């Protein structure tokens, strides 16, 4: 049997962080392999793919960088796209940062540098369960994810010489499935008195995403819709 959802244990050690990362690993591996294959198909060398995944460490932006390099876009346009796509990390870090103020400066930098959608999702779930977070637990979570992401990207880059279409294997579905799973884990911890509020917010988010995506690129719509609907949540929450 595969590991359960995020661990129920109250301990916030490095090892517990590693354990809590395990349920997300298949997602990192699937998307990482898919990225390596796409990188190879975009004429990047294995060394370039390795550097990209190790230093940018952000799935969506890495795919976008490959696509833009392939079409010969100017440097400034590629870097600006990467910035906009990853700007949502500001919201993720802002939501978790207040829970690490007692930790040292270096620990805070360490936690922030490796922030991803998935590690954020796991941490937000942990926070709802235990009421607190620790830097050591977060490092265990983040470093495990970072290691598996990079190994998977390299594996994909190597196997890209034989496999050309990651979609045929369903690997592109790992990302939406992961976000859906993390969303359900979040909702599990909503107190029953707030179900109506959260249902309203989710419906508003769907409407806002559809509407804003008509006007903006979807990665901009993600940020705008979140800012607007989270504000609505503050207004509606009595």
């Amino acid at each position, binding site marked *: 049997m*595969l590991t359960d959802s995020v661990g129920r244990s109250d301990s916030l050690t490095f090892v517990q962080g590693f354990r809590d990362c395990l349920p997300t690993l298949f997602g990192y591996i699937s998307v990482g392999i898919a990225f390596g294959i796409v990188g190879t198909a975009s004429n990047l060398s294995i060394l370039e793919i390795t550097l990209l995944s190790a230093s940018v460490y952000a799935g969506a932006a890495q795919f976008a960088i490959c696509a833009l390099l392939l079409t010969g876009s100017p440097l400034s346009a*590629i*870097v600006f796209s990467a*910035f906009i796509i*990853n700007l949502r990390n500001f919201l993720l870090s802002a939501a978790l940062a207040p829970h690490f103020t007692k930790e040292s400066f270096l620990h805070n930098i360490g936690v922030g540098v490796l922030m991803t959608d998935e590690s954020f999702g796991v941490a937000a779930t942990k926070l709802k369960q235990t009421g607190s977070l620790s830097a050591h637990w977060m490092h265990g979570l983040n470093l495990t994810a970072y290691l598996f992401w990079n190994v998977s990207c390299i594996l994909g880059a190597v196997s890209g010489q034989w496999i050309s279409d990651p979609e045929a294997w369903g690997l592109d*579905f790992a990302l939406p499935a992961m976000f859906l799973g993390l969303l359900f884990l979040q909702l599990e911890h909503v107190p029953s008195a707030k179900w109506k509020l959260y249902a309203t917010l989710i419906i508003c988010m769907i409407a806002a995403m559809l509407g804003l*995506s008509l006007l903006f690129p979807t990665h901009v719509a993600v940020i705008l819709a979140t800012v607007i609907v989270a504000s609505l949540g503050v207004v509606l929450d009595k």
Partner: protein
Amino acid sequence: MSINSTVLAVIALSALVTVIPRILPFLLVRNLRLPDAVMKWLSFVPVCILTALVIENLLMQEESRLAIDWPILLILLPTAIIAYKYRSLSMTVVSGVLLMAIYRYIV
């Protein structure tokens, strides 16, 4: 093993603009106490952003046209039932990828 200097510049600068939004809140929050309204606002961010990311994966933007990725939506529904029933991330992702692979094999 080769590396192109333009690609290297793209990687270095993209890494820089990615790391700034990641660490900036940690630097800012250390030196100020956030008001309760802001903390409440931040508590809604997880559900909002995860919903947004699911929807983003369902949308395709092609030359200023917005379209829905129907196969993704089709497979997302049984995956949602599995996510709700088993409350397990690995179970959700593995069965989702399997369902999508089967769909692509058949269609």
